[in-house]
């Protein structure tokens, strides 16, 4: 009897925690969206409705705001470049970790994660100086390089778990069926890993898309959307802030939602 009571209490506690966690994440997003989709007058008005009026005036104003489209374009360029570089270097590293035993493998894995242990400001300022010296400051490439270092650990870890999940036996079978190593990779591993690689590419995209500190320090003319908003939002009206926030959050949310299965895989959680 008492055992079931304890069990029930535990269940309730669990449920409460789940609800709390959901509220914690969802309420700000909800408020952001509701305000972004309301007419400017409603944003500052009171009382509020739980359902937005779908007035696109805020969004339209935001998009028409000077510099927004340029910043948006910069963001996309940096994010795409980050994505390409992070996967281009991360996927081979992940493959090596998954398939080969080499001296220093454990250290290498540790170091990959270690790059995330340094606070970005610590890196960004010396980098800014360095970039100015070599002429990479305020360029899309320069910022993408920094974002690549941020996205790389995730790219390595996701692709590592991805390639580990593909039995080596399949590659060996391909080798005995007339493939060389490269053909075996492209004919067998690649088709199986493609969705996961796309997912980790999207994740790299989002890392870059959301990053603000390095972007703010390293760019002046070619600001990304985050850096641009950081700079101009204090001084802009409330509706613009909400619209800008939504413009940042929504793509990231959509992307992450699309690739959630693979991100769970990275943390070793099965989600089927």
């Amino acid at each position, binding site marked *: 009897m008492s055992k079931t009571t304890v069990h029930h209490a535990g269940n309730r506690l669990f449920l409460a925690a789940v609800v709390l966690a959901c509220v914690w994440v969802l309420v700000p997003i909800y408020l952001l969206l509701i305000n972004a989709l309301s007419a400017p007058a409603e944003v500052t008005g009171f009382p509020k409705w739980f359902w937005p009026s779908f007035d696109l005036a805020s969004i339209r104003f935001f998009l028409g705001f000077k510099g927004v489209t340029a910043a948006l374009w910069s963001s996309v360029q940096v994010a795409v470049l980050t994505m390409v570089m992070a996967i281009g270097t991360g996927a081979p590293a992940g493959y090596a970790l998954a398939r080969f035993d080499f001296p220093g493998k454990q250290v290498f894995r540790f170091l990959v994660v270690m790059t995330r242990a340094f606070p970005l400001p610590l890196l960004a300022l010396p980098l800014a100086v360095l970039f100015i010296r070599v002429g990479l400051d305020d360029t899309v490439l320069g910022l993408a390089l920094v974002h690549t270092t941020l996205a790389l650990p995730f790219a390595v870890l996701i692709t590592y778990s991805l390639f580990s999940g593909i039995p080596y*036996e*399949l590659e*060996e079978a391909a*080798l*005995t*069926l*007339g*493939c060389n190593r490269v053909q075996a990779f492209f004919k*067998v591993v690649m088709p*199986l890993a493609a969705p996961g690689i796309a997912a980790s590419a999207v994740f790299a995209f989002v890392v870059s898309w959301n990053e603000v500190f390095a972007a703010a320090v390293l760019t002046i003319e070619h600001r990304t959307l985050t850096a641009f908003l950081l700079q101009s939002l204090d001084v802009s009206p409330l509706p613009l802030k909400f619209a800008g926030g939504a413009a940042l959050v929504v793509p990231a949310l959509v992307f992450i939602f699309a690739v959630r299965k693979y991100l769970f895989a990275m943390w070793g959680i099965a989600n089927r």
Partner: protein
Amino acid sequence: MAEIEIKGVGKTFRAFTALHSIDLTINDQEFVVLLGASGCGKTTLLRIIAGLEVPTTGEVWIGGRRVDRLPPRARGISMVFQNYAVFPHLTVFENIAFGLRMQRLPKPEVVRRVTRTAELMHIEQLLKRYSGQLSGGQRQRVAVARALAMEPDVILMDEPLSNLDALLRLEMRAELKGVLAASKTTTIYVTHDQVEAMSLADRIAVMHGGDIVQADRPVEVYRNPAARFVGSFIGNPPMNFLPARALGEGRWQVAGHDFVGPRSAAPQIEFAIRPEDLHPAEHGLVAEVRVVEPLGPHTLVTATVAGVMLRAVLESTLVVAPGDHLSLAPVADRIRWFDPETQKAIT
């Protein structure tokens, strides 16, 4: 024509020696089973022949060509893997056609060969399916069909039946034997299952601790084990071993009885007899029965003789209970002798 010659092949992984120095010649169209417990090096040897592993020492020759430095694709082999390794992103048809397409065979030839091998393996109705839609047994058939479609000189099989359930394994075993005999390829088959080895092989190479202990016809391996290990590994229940004390002049005392044995200078050797070669008789080894297991066709009796455990396969009509004393006589020409030092058979 694909005779395989393995000359002094050794393999060392860092500090661990998986294979010492293997010499083995496999004739064209022969079916050789590499049999041994896990870790004996049988899979390593197979993978070296396949080209998936590079030997540390020695040479591998297939069909008169030295292949040990060639990649798998250049060796004229195909392989069936333990976990089937059916490509999940391809249909059964494309799986079987994979190697043929790599060889750039003309389309009609690809279709012809895929259809033929699929029919041979009774999977022609599955050609459009993906591996996820197949049962274990069906995947196994696809893997074999894929290997056969290559029309290789040599087929290598790495425990291909070990993931199937018992009934299916029995069925596939018989079928494989037929199909492979008809295909006229040379086959090397790795297993730890002695029954599988006995039933399939033209010749069994028993491996132990990185060496081939004996390579001979199944009956020969069973009847005349070259080493104690072979006798204890092959046969279910395995061979019985009893200590034998020298009486001189080739006479040996085993559990109080005199036997004529080999002329050896050793003070003590081992007497060995298969469980089915023991029969109740008036003058035999006195055995105290411990466990009686009626198995239907016969009864398995576990007993102790002079403190040593021994098993006997007896007539199921025999009435016997734990605690009874039986007098068991070995069939004279089935007695084998082993040197406890070298572990080898003494003749």
